[in-house]
């Protein structure tokens, strides 16, 4: 069976900066800033107003529609004001500023027994806890726990690839919270009514693999799949291909080939919600890069400003060039250290000029290095040219909308052409066109 996919690249891993550092709790910040849009779909509806007291774990905003998730307060305190901010992923969102008080009071949900809990109860709990996927897209998790009844699901695949360089959060989960991960996976299996679970891990995590092998020895319906270390091995389509050999057709979902994929972090959140009654109020993240004084793995309350995190890690070095939320391949450059961490933030990187060189753009040499690494077998150079010259119809014909924007092409382009940026531009422009057409 395949243990990887075709194409992809292998950037410098840089995981050694934090891989041996256990999670630490960040001291609670004095003030947090809680965006109401921390998930794909519609922003949550605020239930509180200025001056209201809130308790840790209390729901302060309710979901608005099918693809939305509630927001809970990560601290006990008082609502200072509401404001409008730009989130780490560059979306404008309403946000609530909460001033923390010293009262240590929480409002958690009732703990449930993971063995006896009913299927419907798990889904309901995941929904109540506001859990969103932690692989990057922040899709409300409960939706993925209830596949359409006409789809037969064979596997739940737990994504522990962590193929982005620098990030070691999922690795630390596997080492420090092995039981939680497994129990979380079992809860997902039960909720989704699926028999088999597979954990997909890249082969650059031997410690985690050893630990999992030990724990899984007595588990009959959960297996481990060791995959080649390669970016983007953790992309849904690539992971399904590597683990099952199945290919998700363009425009289709994992459901359509009998798979459900969840991130390791999501499994831990599900465990916390069911077993501890804790809503998703903490983010687990890797703070790394050669531009930060002391790289760490941290547990921080959602809504913590970047500033607090960077200060806790000793601050920024003089040669810092870029601050990125997420991994270096798909993360977002930041311009405001007051910006808050959200539920799906996986890392904060401070990169130096050496790490993020920013190559000067020159002409396309037709070298095909973008084609040879594109995991979806697209032609990035042609998509780029069509997008750049506004030939969106032609671009759509050759798969513009299929591109998952992993950035592999741009990473590998010797001419330094911002291929994926132009493709993103093309996707936005042409989806506006497609909308216009249907109207």
């Amino acid at each position, binding site marked *: 069976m395949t243990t990887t996919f075709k194409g992809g690249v292998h950037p410098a891993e840089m995981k050694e900066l934090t891989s041996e550092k256990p999670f630490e709790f960040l001291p609670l910040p004095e003030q947090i800033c809680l965006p109401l849009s921390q998930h794909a779909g519609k922003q949550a509806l605020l239930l509180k107003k200025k001056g209201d007291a809130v308790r840790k774990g209390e729901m302060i905003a309710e979901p608005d529609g099918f693809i939305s998730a509630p927001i809970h307060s990560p601290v006990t305190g008082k609502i200072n004001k509401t404001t409008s901010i730009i989130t780490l992923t560059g979306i404008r969102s309403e946000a609530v500023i909460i001033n923390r008080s010293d009262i240590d009071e929480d409002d958690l949900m009732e703990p449930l027994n993971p063995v006896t809990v009913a299927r419907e109860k798990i889904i309901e709990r995941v929904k109540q806890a506001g859990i969103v996927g932690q692989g990057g897209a922040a899709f409300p998790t409960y939706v993925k726990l209830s596949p359409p009844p006409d789809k037969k699901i064979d596997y739940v695949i737990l994504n522990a690839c962590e193929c982005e360089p620098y990030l070691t959060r999922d690795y630390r989960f596997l080492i420090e919270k092995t039981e939680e991960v497994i129990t979380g996976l079992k809860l997902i299996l039960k909720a989704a009514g699926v028999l088999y679970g597979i954990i997909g891990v890249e082969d650059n995590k031997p410690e985690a693999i050893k630990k999992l092998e030990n724990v899984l020895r007595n588990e009959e319906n959960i297996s481990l799949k060791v995959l080649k270390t390669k970016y983007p091995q953790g992309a849904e389509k690539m992971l399904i291909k590597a683990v099952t050999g199945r290919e998700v057709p*363009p425009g289709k979902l994992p459901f359509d080939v009998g798979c459900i994929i969840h991130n390791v972090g999501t499994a831990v959140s599900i465990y916390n919600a069911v077993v501890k009654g804790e809503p998703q109020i903490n983010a687990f993240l890797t703070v790394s890069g050669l531009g930060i004084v002391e790289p760490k793995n941290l547990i921080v309350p959602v809504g913590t400003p970047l500033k607090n995190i960077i200060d806790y890690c000793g601050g920024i070095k003089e040669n810092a060039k870029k601050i990125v939320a997420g991994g270096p391949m798909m993360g977002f450059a930041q311009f405001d250290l007051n910006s808050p961490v959200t539920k799906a933030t996986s890392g904060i990187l401070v990169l130096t000029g050496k790490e993020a060189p920013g190559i000067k753009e020159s002409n396309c040499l037709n070298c095909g290095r973008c084609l040879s690494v594109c995991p979806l077998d697209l032609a990035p150079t042609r998509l780029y040219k069509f997008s750049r010259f506004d030939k969106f119809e032609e671009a759509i014909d050759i798969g513009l909308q299929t591109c998952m924007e992993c950035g592999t092409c741009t990473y590998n382009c010797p001419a*330094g052409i911002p291929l994926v940026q132009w493709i993103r531009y093309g996707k936005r422009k042409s989806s506006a066109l497609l909308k216009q057409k249907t109207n």
Partner: protein
Amino acid sequence: MSNSANQTVNVISGLELSSSPHVHSKFTTQQVMWLVNLSLLPALISAAVFFGLYQLVVIGVSCAAAVLSEIVVKIIRKSEITIYDGSAFLTGLLLGLIIPPNFSLTSAAIGSAFAIIIGKELFGGLGFNIFNPALVGRAFLQAAYPVAMTTWSKPNFAVDTVTSATPLAAFKFDKMITGIEPLIIGNVGGSIGETSALAIIIGGVFLIGIKIVNWRIPLSMILGLILFGSIFWFIDPIKYPNPLFHLFSGGFLLGAFFMATDWVTSPYTSAGMWIYGLLISLIIVVIRLFGGLPEGVMYGILIMNAFVPLINRLTHPKIFGEAK
């Protein structure tokens, strides 16, 4: 606290805000071009060893003319001077290696200027040219100086029996076959940098090893040449040379490793590379065996250069997950 906060706020004003990906592979166009230049060092040495130090002067003039022409064009077009990317130098170097020994300096300079101005810059510069510029320059010289382009010098260590003709011409016109050993070492007549198979293979394998040259193009050309050469050899081993002679004689290996593999003018799909390489070899064998000229590498590559956009289009891979 407030102090360090101020510091971080200060730092952030200087931060870069470009979008992902934030990291990049180690290869840039400039590095690649200079590595290709470097990989031609063995061929350059073989040129000096077999045909004398004067050849280095010819090659030097060719390189200088290429670089200067590009500077002039860029100044006229009021665009950025790009000679540091090494591509103009490479064109000059390649052209210098595929002209006969003891070539006139003026003619070399003219050929090189033609290669850059007509072969490259007229199309819009690096990346936009359809034909390999060095081969365009050579085609021009072939037309402008037909005698000089077919006047071959004896290599330095030639024994008396070796004529000053190239092995391909000796076979074509006198049915004289040259042994494989001198062909591999390079002690035979031919263009300055193409006679030593060994020197070319060293450079070519280096480029394949560091993944600048895609192995499919040289391999498909070599397999194609052996296949088509063998067919005729089996038909009549007296009339047609054996495939190994085809492989090691003339400009085939230099063409296979350094000319046909030019990124700009070769296909970028894997299937396309196979088609392109096989067809170049077919043209070479046909010209060598049935054409008026002893050699066909230049024409084989230039002709197939013209088909590259079509080949790319026809061999486009299916998108991941689409019905195969």
